């Protein structure tokens, strides 16, 4: 068996079910690793070692007595610190909520626990999922395990860094403008933004009601499918929840891709935001590889990234202002500077602009739907550059918006980011696949083919 920290969730679940690995043994190994690496990586806002070990002992007893809870029995999971876990703080990485303790689990957390997962702690984020990386907050920002001088992406920074370095096999993040897919891209792992409404947002601190999604971060495509199968499902108390039954997400993982049609959105990285040459070459390599596996690659044109980005920002800034206005009026000094600047922007957007963005949004949805009538999956860039140096604020400010993730928050289509290669500087490069509404199974099918061909699931950060 591999080192426990490099076991995938699927491997660990099988080993636990077969009694070849005990939940206590797994948790002990991971807590030792967390103790050694977290002081350098700052993945955790709050580590709940005691609670996690208690839960691991209970999980072990349940396995011994033949009462497994579900497919994630005994698996450690990290939770982004904007998502409620009963009895633990939800600070949103901010002084504003420094004393806030959650009374109940968010629905997604309750579903994970119901399936047997064990919460190991709360993870670093950009402040309120928007302001970061910042050095003026109560906790430092997480760092990239591939090179600690670099940003691990955000806003689900701790989720991405912790998965990549093997601190836990499963993590939850949230994605309003790319915040699951960005750390997945920067850390060389798999991050899924599901279809809007597929995963309940109840118990997740909002950033932008109509753009917010909750999604899994994992080291493999199969683990992403496994985790989505647990957290997906209608929640009648979440106004944005879709009344759609969860799918069989792992059903096509090993089916191959022969006969599928893939639309390659080259203009995103060729002309809209010209990508780093290594990123562009990696994307072409993904397309060639999938073509070699039997897919048909077609060129697709959508509105420009500039247009998508503007609509995303007008909606996000307006909705975020509606949430944060009271605190920004009374306690502006309790925000870090980045969050303060970004969250106040909505005060300067008119109601008419917000409605116009919604109207343009519907047209953009129609355009993407048209494209997906002719192809099964879209392929495009995620990040246009390798991750920036975390302390180079100007470089982070320049590269952070150079991405192709926001279009699919605007339209709500499912989108998955994963490793496309490794740069000459030793940092992950990324690719993004986009599917039809509730078409996550096909998305996983294509992503798995690329993972198998490139061996991305076997690439880990240098040993630390």
């Amino acid at each position: 068996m591999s080192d426990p920290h490099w076991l995938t969730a699927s491997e660990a679940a099988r080993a636990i079910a077969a009694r070849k690995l005990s939940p206590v043994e797994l948790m002990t190994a991971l807590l030792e690793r967390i103790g050694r690496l977290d002081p350098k990586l700052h993945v955790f806002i709050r580590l709940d070692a005691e609670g996690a070990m208690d839960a691991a002992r209970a999980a072990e007893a349940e396995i011994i007595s033949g009462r497994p809870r579900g497919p994630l029995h005994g698996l450690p999971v990290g939770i982004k610190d904007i998502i409620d876990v009963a009895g633990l703080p939800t600070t949103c990485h901010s002084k504003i909520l420094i004393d806030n303790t959650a009374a109940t689990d968010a629905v997604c957390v309750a579903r994970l626990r119901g399936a047997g997962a064990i919460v190991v702690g709360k993870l670093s984020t950009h402040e309120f999922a928007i302001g970061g990386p910042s050095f003026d907050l109560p906790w430092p920002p997480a760092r990239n395990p591939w090179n600690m001088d670099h940003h691990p992406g955000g806003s689900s920074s701790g989720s991405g860094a912790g998965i990549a370095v093997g601190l836990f096999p499963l993590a939850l993040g949230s994605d309003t403008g790319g915040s699951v897919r960005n750390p997945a891209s920067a850390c060389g792992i798999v991050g899924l933004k599901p279809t809007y409404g597929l995963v309940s947002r109840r118990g997740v601190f909002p950033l932008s009601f109509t753009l917010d999604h909750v999604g899994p971060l994992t080291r493999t495509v199969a683990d992403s499918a496994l985790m989505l199968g647990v957290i997906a499902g209608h929640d009648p108390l979440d106004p944005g929840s879709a009344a759609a039954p969860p799918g069989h997400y792992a059903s096509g993982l090993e089916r191959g891709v022969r006969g599928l049609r893939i639309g390659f959105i080259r203009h995103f990285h060729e002309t809209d935001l010209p990508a780093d040459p290594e990123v562009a070459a990696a994307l072409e390599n993904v397309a060639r590889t999938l073509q070699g596996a039997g897919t048909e690659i077609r060129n697709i044109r959508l509105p420009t990234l500039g247009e998508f980005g503007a609509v995303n920002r007008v909606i996000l800034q307006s909705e975020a202002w509606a949430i944060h206005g009271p605190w920004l009026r009374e306690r502006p000094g309790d925000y870090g500077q980045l969050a303060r600047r970004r969250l106040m922007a909505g005060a300067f957007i008119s109601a008419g602009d917000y409605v116009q963005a919604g109207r343009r949004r519907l047209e953009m949805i129609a355009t993407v739907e048209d494209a997906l009538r002719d192809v099964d999956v879209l392929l495009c860039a995620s990040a246009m550059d390798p991750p920036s140096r975390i302390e180079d604020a100007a470089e982070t400010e320049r590269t952070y918006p150079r991405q192709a993730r926001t279009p699919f928050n605007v339209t709500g289509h499912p989108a998955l980011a994963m490793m496309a290669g490794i740069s000459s500087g030793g940092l992950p490069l990324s690719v993004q696949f986009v599917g039809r509404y509730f078409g996550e199974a096909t998305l996983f099918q294509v992503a798995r083919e690329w993972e198998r061909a490139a061996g991305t699931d076997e690439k880990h950060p240098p040993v630390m």
Partner: protein
Amino acid sequence: MDKATIELLARRAGLDKALAEFPEDVAAAAEQAGGSVARMKAPTDPRAEPWPPMRAGGGL
């Protein structure tokens, strides 16, 4: 957006404290908002409605 307009809008939004303590951040926020709105294209169809729909049951 000129300084007087930014101050007017900020006060109208109740951001007096931020204006006093972090005037540069208020100006930066106004600039971000202005940039986003300026880059947004108007809908092409005058009958285009917004998403999410303005009627119940019209989601995904």
